């Protein structure tokens, strides 16, 4: 009697798209369904080691790919390295094809800066400059312009990844989009209007943006956005009020540089973890982008100038 001999081999793959325990279960089930056995699986590294009949491996790989887990390419492996952030920067500067969405957002930002600058200059000359201490608002108007454009940039950057953002990355997005805008706005309004207004406005901006950006991956990202916005709004205002007599403007410039780096870090994280996005995935146009930047900048200027003032303020 002839026996059919099957050769069972061990395979090791690095997959893109694995992010959580559910992903690991999907992989395990696919391997098991095809007669194989999973030896090791790690959603963090994307590594899966399994044994199976050599005839089954192509079927298993096909099923992985059907469920959205594809083998990492050379490009993915290179992109996964944090040291490649410099390549990412140079790709953006040279407007390479793999950073089309980011390059487009930078173009929009130039228009956004012009529109916000124009709106804030108009607000200053028509209204603020006439006040006795009008010139004291200038550095804060500059910061609110900077803050508006960077917030709108990052929000649109996060939104273009939409539901492709995994749970863990979505929590990071919710946290960054809640914390950084909340901190920046809280710090500006805290300096000009005091602790109460700074906290309330900072929290409001942080929570709204944190929830809107984080909800792409469900309730976890949204909750992370709420917590980050809540915390950062208060902390931003608190920092400014506590530093009123101690180089506040210089500190705010340092703070904004760090916040900018964090927002850029989020952009790299999304690109690294999920992959490049083309321009069509952006749900905004240059006009909409510029109008949003100008509206946010103007809103902050109006709150700064017309909003109620607390007992401890810079102006």
């Amino acid at each position, binding site marked *: 009697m002839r026996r059919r001999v099957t050769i069972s081999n061990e395979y090791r793959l690095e997959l893109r798209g694995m*992010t959580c325990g*559910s992903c690991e279960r*999907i992989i395990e*089930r696919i391997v098991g369904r095809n007669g194989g056995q999973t030896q090791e699986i790690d959603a963090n590294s994307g590594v899966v080691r399994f044994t199976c009949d050599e005839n089954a491996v192509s079927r298993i790989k096909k099923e992985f790919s059907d469920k*959205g887990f594809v083998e990492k390419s050379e490009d993915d492996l290179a992109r996964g390295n944090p040291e490649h952030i410099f390549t990412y920067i140079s790709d953006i500067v040279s407007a390479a094809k793999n950073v089309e969405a980011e390059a487009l957002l930078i173009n929009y930002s130039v228009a956004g800066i012009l529109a916000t600058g124009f709106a804030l200059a108009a607000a200053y000359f028509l209204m603020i400059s006439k006040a006795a201490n009008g010139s004291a608002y200038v550095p804060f108007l500059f910061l609110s312009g900077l803050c508006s454009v960077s917030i709108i940039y990052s929000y649109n950057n996060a939104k273009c990844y939409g539901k492709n953002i995994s*749970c863990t990355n*979505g929590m990071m997005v919710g946290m960054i989009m809640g914390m950084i805008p909340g901190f920046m706005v809280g710090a500006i309004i805290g300096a000009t209007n005091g602790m109460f207004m700074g906290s309330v406005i900072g929290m409001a901006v942080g929570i709204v943006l944190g929830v809107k950006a984080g909800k792409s*991956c*469900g*309730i976890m990202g949204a909750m992370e956005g709420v917590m980050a916005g809540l915390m950062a709004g208060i902390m931003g205002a608190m920092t400014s009020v506590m530093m009123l007599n101690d180089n506040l403007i210089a500190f705010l410039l340092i703070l904004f540089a760090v916040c900018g780096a964090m927002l850029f870090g989020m952009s790299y994280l999304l690109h690294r973890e999920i992959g490049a996005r083309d321009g069509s995935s952006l749900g905004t146009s240059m006009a909409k982008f510029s109008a949003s930047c100008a509206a946010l900048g103007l809103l902050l200027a109006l709150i700064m100038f017309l909003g109620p003032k607390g007992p401890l303020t810079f102006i």
Partner: protein
Amino acid sequence: MLGDVEVEKTINVLGMHCKSCKILIEDVVLEVEGVQGVEADFESGKVVVKYSDENAMQKIKDAIEKEGYHIK
């Protein structure tokens, strides 16, 4: 037996939080005998199943709970 009559029911599932949970739940439910179709939505926690075997519903719930999710 429901015979060839296809029934569509919605199950509320707790614990789904991402796209992979949706894929996993759809995967386990489709393996249940008598299930014709399934559509899970992780945001609302709703899983819509189509089946034609009256015993399928309990098996579907068991399969979902076996993966660590809870049925409301």
